[in-house]
């Protein structure tokens, strides 16, 4: 829909509200459960579907071009490092896919402040953090100064 929320599964935890890039997942004040308040600003990005601990959110294709009867379900498991998909066609055809999402533990990235401080000298050259090491070539390329400003 855009996304929608199953009444019996949602417990109103708000993870979808917290993650939605479009700010369209809100908590209904009467039912205390989530809903999509603006389906025509939904990108079907599935951020909320993936974030829902209750698997309470699903998508129904945009009404103006998607016939009913399909589903695209997802299970994102950070502990396993995978995302799994099940596609079901209107005619019943099914397809399954699994992909890796990350090769390192969550939270393992080092702050740039943990690396040795750059020298004053290095502010005057063109190299960025961790260069040239991370370039995996000997040095950062540059252009011959004679080429500057010529047509």
């Amino acid at each position: 829909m855009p996304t929608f929320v199953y009444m019996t599964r949602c417990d109103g935890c708000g993870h979808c509200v917290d993650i939605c890039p479009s700010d369209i997942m809100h908590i209904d004040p009467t039912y205390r459960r989530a809903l999509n308040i603006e389906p025509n600003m939904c990108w079907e990005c599935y951020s909320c579907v993936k974030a829902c601990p209750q698997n309470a959110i699903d998508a129904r294709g945009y009404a103006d071009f998607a016939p009913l009867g399909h589903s695209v379900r997802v299970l994102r498991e950070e502990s396993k490092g995978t995302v799994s998909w099940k596609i079901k066609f209107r005619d019943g055809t099914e397809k399954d896919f699994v992909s890796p999402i990350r090769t390192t533990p969550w939270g393992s990235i080092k702050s740039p402040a943990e690396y040795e401080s750059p020298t004053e000298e290095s502010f005057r050259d063109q190299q960025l953090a961790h260069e040239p090491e991370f370039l995996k070539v000997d040095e950062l390329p540059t252009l011959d100064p004679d080429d500057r400003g010529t047509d």
Partner: protein
Amino acid sequence: MGLFSRRKTVFVDSDVLVVGGGMAGCGATYEARYWGRDLKIVCVEKANIERSGAVAQGLYAINTYMGMRWGENQPEDHVRYARNDLMGLVREDLGYDIARHVDSCVHQFEDWGLPMMRDPETGRYQREGKWQIMIHGESYKPIVAEAACKAATEVYNRIMVTHLLMDSTKANRVAGAVGFNVRTGDFYVFRATAVIVCAGGASHIYKPRAVGEGMGRTWYAPWSSASAYALPILVGARMTQMENRIVLTRFKDGYGPVGAYFLHLKTYTENAYGEEYESKWTEHTRNLVGDYVDRHPVPTCLRNHALLEEQKAGRGPIRMVTKEAFQDPHKETVGWENFLGMTIGQAVVWASQNIDPKHTNPELTTSEPYVMGSHATCSGAWASGPEDCAPDDYQWGYNRMMTVDGLFGAGDTIGGAAHKFSSGSFTEGRIAAKAAVKYVKDLRNDRPEVSEAEYQELKKVIFKPLENYEVGRNEIVAGTVSPSYLLPMHGLQRLEKIMDEYVGGIGANYITNEPLLTRGLELLEMLKEDLDHLGAEDLHQLQRAWELHHRVVASESVTHHTMFRTETRWPGYYYRGDYPRLNDSDWHCFTLSRYDRNSGTWDLETAPVHHIID
């Protein structure tokens, strides 16, 4: 005024303020910390940095990677490619600068845990095309955001930045930004020495093909609301190539990507009768643009042009021939995972319409236009280039600093450097941040000051839509029709209709001319006046109101630029009906504009294109 006078104001002071936590903003935040160990680095994001920006959904490819370590490409090669694709007009210094650094960013992504596909024979990254490599990028954004969060002093989520603040002590110098918290309604004043605008480009300035629920399935994210342009424009930063909007050839309705299909799966297009059609339009296109049509690869806009002409000749729909490639189970998997990794909506469309590309060749279409600085297009702010290779005309200060002191940018914000994509935007954020830290250190104690009068005035303006609604709502029984206010969606739909009909959208077959543009500007002016009467029922609608403001400012800029360039430089992106041909003798140059916020006028001029790569 009295109604909201007790609204809380929160002050946040920083040395470097990064506006927008997408790919460019995460790169900027990371790099700012590396160089500015003792500085306060703040990143402010409209949504949640973990899933924000154009890469929120993930990506299945990184479209800009040189592969210098394997001798695959050199930065100069990428400049030639981007220049060719943009019909000769790019800032070669900026493009070169991104290309020479981008590999180190990609290697860092892998180090951080982004799963890269490898070619089983060579052990190198799996190439999708000459520049593209394939990844399992479902978590591309959360991974990059983790790095930015580790680097930042503070990350503020759910704050919509509405305006930049200028220094009250020195002319033409930035001093911070203001906005509001979409959850609490608190007013935020960010006082900063350097500001790096890393906000998003523009979707939803042109009427999309789907106008019901499906209007959310724009090609570019619906939350890319042109803040990349409105923020700098409103403080008088010079902009470039704003007429250079992009139109995408994509799978119908879902706008699923075609790159992997063309490049990796080796699928190809045909008309409704199974005929190859591109070559039959070559001579016709050569009459419009000369030998640009003979370049390799054929520029993106010209391929669009051939498709559009074939459809106009009555031989649509154009289809992608997938049936052959999809007999190979590996290719079938790649074809589907490509969507699941970055455009899930296309998988939904195909499942709903029983389109299995193994048995059916799916339809293609051309999208509504978008304005951005990071794809096969290069609208954005005019920025100073790298010290070691930018021509003198392109250099007036720190790298990636705009024409406003202390105001930097990256990603969609910076114009002239096409084909950045995700990796290039991140790279540009890093480049801008190193320069911004240097700027902060060089200023020492000469810090900008924010005037209280300025932010108090903005506070009134920002929350006015809530007041408009509160007051006007009592006039009517119920419903959405009020004589006193417009809802943000009303204004958005008017904007999209104006741009579509007068500035070359899908409804006009991408064609416009001077009389149409003149009328378009008149209607935009009235829309701008009406923006004072937007009504917002709640904070979510207040966010929509300010997104609309930003879109309208960007649209006005696009329209002025389109009027100024009296040629058709990129057929397939848009056409000037009154100047149907490319005109290299007069227009092999950049267009520049500056908005004067005091007089409300736009000044346009040209700047030379310097070719620093042969």
